[in-house]
C-alpha cells in the first residue's frame, strides 16, 4: 500500500516536472526541471531495491550529465529565449513518438518477459540484499580486472581529448 502511494507521489512529481521542463521558457529552468525528473527516477529505482542504480542515476545523470547540459546552456546564449519558439513546431513529431513509446511500454507490460517471468505492475517484491556490496564483490574478485582497468584507459582518453580540444580553441 505504502509502496503504491510512494510510487504515485514520485511519478506525479516526475510528470509535473516533465511538463514544466517542456513548457519552461528558459533553457536553464528546463535543465533544473530535468534534475527533478532524474531524482524521481532514482527514487523509483530505490522502490525496485536497486540502490546502486539509484546512486549511479544521481551521480551520473543528476551530477555529471546535468553539469554538461548546464555548461552547454551557459556557453550558448542563455538569454535567447525566442529561439525556443522554433521547437514548438516539432510538437506533432514529438506527440507521435511519445504515442509509439506509450504503446511500446504497454506492450512490454502486457506480453514482455524478464528472465522468463512475465512483466507485471506493481513489480514483484525482491528480497532485500546489499546489491552495492554484491556488485563490488563481483567486480573486484571475479576476473573483471582487464575490463575494469580498460575503463580507466577510456576515461584518460576522455581527459586527453578534452584537453587537446580546449587547447586548440585557445
Amino acid at each position, binding site marked *: 500500500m505504502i*509502496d503504491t502511494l510512494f510510487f504515485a507521489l514520485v511519478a506525479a512529481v516526475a510528470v509535473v516536472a516533465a511538463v514544466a521542463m517542456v513548457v519552461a521558457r528558459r533553457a536553464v529552468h528546463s535543465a533544473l526541471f530535468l534534475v527533478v525528473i532524474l531524482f524521481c527516477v532514482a527514487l523509483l529505482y530505490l522502490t525496485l531495491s536497486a540502490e*546502486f542504480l539509484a546512486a549511479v542515476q544521481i551521480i551520473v545523470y543528476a551530477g555529471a550529465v546535468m553539469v554538461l547540459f548546464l*555548461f552547454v546552456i551557459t*556557453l550558448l546564449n542563455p538569454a535567447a529565449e525566442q529561439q525556443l519558439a522554433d521547437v514548438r513546431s516539432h510538437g506533432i513529431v514529438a506527440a507521435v513518438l511519445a504515442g509509439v513509446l506509450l504503446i511500446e511500454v504497454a506492450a512490454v507490460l502486457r506480453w514482455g518477459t524478464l528472465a522468463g517471468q512475465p512483466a507485471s505492475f506493481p513489480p514483484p517484491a525482491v528480497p532485500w540484499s546489499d546489491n*552495492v556490496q*554484491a*556488485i563490488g564483490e563481483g567486480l573486484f574478485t571475479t576476473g573483471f580486472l582487464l575490463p575494469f582497468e580498460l575503463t580507466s584507459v577510456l*576515461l584518460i582518453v576522455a581527459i586527453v581529448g578534452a584537453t587537446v580540444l580546449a587547447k586548440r580553441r585557445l
Partner: protein
Amino acid sequence: MQTDWGNWGYVALFLLIATGFAFIPLVLSPLIRPRNPNPVKQATYECGIETVGTSWIRYYAGFYVYALVFVVFDVETIFLYPWAVAFGLLNWFALIEMAIFIGILLVGLVYAWKKQALRWW
C-alpha cells in the same frame, strides 16, 4: 508487494532535515526581521563593486574542460563506491586493482594540469 525499506527511512529523514535546515531560516528570517531598507542596504554587495550588466551572458568556452574533467572523476566515483562498500570482503588484490585504476586516471589529471587546461585565464 511490500518493498523492504531497510535503512532508507533514515536517509529520507536526513534529506528532510537537511532541506529544512536550508529552507526554514530563509522562510523565517523575512517574517521576524525588522524592515527598514535604505539604498546602501539594498546594494548587491555591502562592500565591493556593483555588478555591470546582466549575469545571463555567454561564458568562456574553456570552462567546458572543467566540466569534462569533472565527469571523468564522477565516473571514477561510481567504481569507488561499490569497491568501498565491499572493501571488507575484498583482498589486497582489489586494493592494487583500484590503485592502478586511480593511478591511470591521475596520469590524465597531471596531463591536463601540465597542458595548463586547468588555468582560469
